[in-house]
C-alpha cells in the first residue's frame, strides 16, 4: 500500500470519528427544541397550532400523537424518534410540511450564500495578505479601519444603506425580491434578471463576511511572515512572491480555516438578516415570516436545520484542516 492511500484511509477514519462526535451535539439541539416546546409558557398543542381554530377532536388526536398524556421521558423519546425519521412537523400557517417548505426555499439561500462566499473569500484573503505584507502602510491602515467599521455595523443597516443609495437614489438596482414580477422572463433573460436582483444582497453579505476573513488573514499572515522559516527562505534568495505564497501563505491559512469554521453560525445569522432586508425568498426570509406569524413548528424546524448545518460545517472544517495538515490525522 502506498503512503498516499494510507493517508486516505486514515483521513477517512478521522472523518468518521469526527462525525460520530457530532451526533451528541445534534441530540443536544433536539433536546433544546423539546425544552422550548414544553418549558415555554402556554399549552404545547396551542403553541404548535399557532392559535389556529381547530376542532377539539383534532386537538385531542394531536395530544395523543405527541404523547402529552405520557410521562415526560416517553414524550422526549417520541420527539427524538420523530426527528430521527427526519419528520420536522407540519406548519399550520403555510399548510405544508416543514421539511418540504424548507427545501423549497433552500436554493435561493444557497445562491446568495454561495455567491457571497466566493466573493468574500477571494477578496478577503487577497486583501489580508497584501495588508500583512505591507504592514503599517496606507492601504493596511485604511483597510483595517474600514473593516473595523464593517465589524461594528448591523448587516441589515448596511443593506438598507445600499438600497437607499443604489436602488432608491440612483435607481441602478431593483429594491426587493429575486425576479421582476411584471415580466416573466425565460432562459438567458431570466439569469440576467436574477443576477440583477442578486447584486445588492450579495454585495451586502460579502462585505459582512469579508470583514471577518480579512481581519483573520491579516493577523495570521503577519504572524507567519515574522517567523524564522520565512526569514530563512528569504535568506536563501527565493523570490518574494515565492516566499509569500509558497512558504508563508499555507501556514497562515491553517488557523484561518479553523476560525472560519467557528464562525459559520455567525455567517448564517448575517444571511437571515440580509435576506430579510432584500426580501430574498430564501430560508432567512422564511424565518422572518415564521417569527411574524409565530409559526412555532416552522421555527423549530429551521432552528434544527441551521444548527445541524453549523455542526456539519464544523466537522467539514476539521476534515479540511486535517487534509491540509496531515499531522492532525497521525496524532
Amino acid at each position, binding site marked *: 500500500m502506498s503512503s498516499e492511500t494510507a493517508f486516505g484511509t486514515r483521513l477517512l477514519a478521522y472523518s468518521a470519528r469526527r462525525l460520530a462526535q457530532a451526533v451528541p*451535539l445534534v441530540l*443536544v*439541539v433536539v433536546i*433544546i427544541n423539546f425544552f*422550548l*416546546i414544553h418549558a*415555554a*409558557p402556554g399549552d404545547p398543542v396551542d*403553541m404548535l397550532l399557532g392559535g389556529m381554530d381547530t376542532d377539539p377532536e383534532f386537538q385531542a388526536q394531536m395530544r395523543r400523537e405527541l404523547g402529552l398524556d405520557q410521562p415526560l421521558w416517553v414524550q422526549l423519546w417520541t420527539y427524538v424518534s420523530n426527528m430521527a425519521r427526519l419528520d420536522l412537523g407540519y406548519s399550520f400557517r403555510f399548510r405544508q410540511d416543514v421539511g418540504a417548505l424548507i427545501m423549497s426555499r433552500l436554493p435561493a439561500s444557497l445562491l446568495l450564500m454561495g455567491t457571497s462566499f466566493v466573493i468574500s473569500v477571494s477578496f478577503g484573503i487577497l486583501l489580508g495578505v497584501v495588508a500583512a505584507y505591507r504592514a503599517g502602510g496606507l492601504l493596511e491602515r485604511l483597510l483595517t479601519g474600514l473593516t*473595523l*467599521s464593517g*465589524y*461594528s*455595523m*448591523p*448587516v*441589515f*443597516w448596511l443593506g*438598507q*444603506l445600499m*438600497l*437607499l443609495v443604489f436602488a*432608491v437614489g440612483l435607481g441602478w438596482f431593483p429594491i426587493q425580491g429575486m425576479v421582476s414580477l411584471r415580466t416573466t422572463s425565460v432562459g438567458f433573460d431570466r439569469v440576467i434578471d436574477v443576477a440583477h436582483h442578486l447584486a445588492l444582497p450579495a454585495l451586502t453579505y460579502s462585505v459582512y463576511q469579508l470583514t471577518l476573513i480579512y481581519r483573520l488573514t491579516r*493577523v495570521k499572515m*503577519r504572524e507567519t511572515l515574522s517567523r524564522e522559516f520565512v526569514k530563512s527562505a528569504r535568506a536563501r534568495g527565493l523570490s518574494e512572491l515565492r516566499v509569500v505564497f509558497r512558504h508563508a501563505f499555507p501556514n497562515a491559512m491553517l488557523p484561518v480555516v479553523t476560525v472560519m469554521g*467557528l464562525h*459559520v*453560525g*455567525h455567517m*448564517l*445569522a448575517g444571511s*437571515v*438578516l440580509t435576506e*430579510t*432586508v432584500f426580501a430574498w425568498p430564501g430560508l432567512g426570509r422564511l*424565518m*422572518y415570516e415564521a*417569527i*411574524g406569524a*409565530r409559526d*412555532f413548528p416552522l*421555527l*423549530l424546524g429551521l*432552528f434544527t436545520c*441551521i*444548527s445541524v448545518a*453549523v*455542526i456539519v460545517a*464544523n466537522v467539514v472544517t476539521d476534515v479540511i484542516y486535517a487534509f491540509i495538515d496531515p499531522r492532525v490525522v497521525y496524532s
Partner: protein
Amino acid sequence: MTARTATRAGLPIYSGLLLLGIVLFASMGGALRPFDAERVAVGPALAAPDSVHLMGTDELGRDVFNRVLSGTRVSLFVGITAALAAALVGIAVGATAGFLGGFTDDVLMRVTEVFQVIPRFFLAMMLVAFFGPSLGNVVVAIGLLSWPQLARVVRAEFLSLKSRDYIEAARAAGAGNLNLMFAKILPNALGPTMASGTLLVAQAILIEAGLSYLGLGDPSRVSLGLMLQQAQPIMRSAWWATAFPGLAIFATAITINLMGEGLTERWQPHTR
C-alpha cells in the same frame, strides 16, 4: 515609542471618553429632548430634519431624534447587562475549569464547546420567540449564550497564573481554594477579562438590534432595530428614518469595539 504607538496606547482612554459621551447624551433629558419618544404627531409626518426636529419625523409624526436617544439608552442597557451576565457565567466556568483542572476542566470545556457550536443568534431568537420578547428575556437570552468566549480567556489566565510562586506561598499560608481563586488569581486576570468583556458589549448590542429588527424586541420600548424595520417601507420618502437609528447603533458599537481592541492590545500584546 513612536507617535503611532502612543496613539494606540491611548486608544482605550479616548474611546472610553467617547463612550462616556454617548452614555451621557443618551441619558440626558430636558432641553435636549423636548418631545416624548413614544408620542405620535409631535410634528408633521415625514418631515425632513430641521432645527425643531433634528433628525426629522417618521410616518406617524414621531420625533426621530428623541427616539434615537431612547433607543440608544435601551441598546446600552441590553449590551451592558447582557455582557455582565455573560461575564458572571464565563468567570465562574473559566475560573473553576482553569483552577481545578483535570476531570472538572474536561467536563466544563466540553460543555463550553457545545455552547460554542450551537449558533447563538438563532438560539437567542428561539428563546425570545418562545418565552416572549420582554427586555429581561432578551438580556438573559443574549447573556447566557455569550459566555463561552470569556470562559476560555479566563481559563487560560487561571491556568498560567495558578502555578506562580505567590499562589504557592498563599496556599502554604493556609488560603482556601475560593480565596485563592477570587482574591489572589482573579484580580491578576482582570485585564484580559475586561478586554474580552468589552467586546461582548458591542456584540450584545448588535444581536439586540438584529433581534428587534426581526420583530423580537420588547414592544413596550423604543428600539433602534425596530425603528429600522419600520423605516423600510417609507425609505423612498424619508431617508432620515433609516439613516439615523442605524448610525446610532454603528457609533455605539464601533466606540465599544475600539475600546475593546485597545484593551486587548494592552493585555495581550503578542496577538498583534
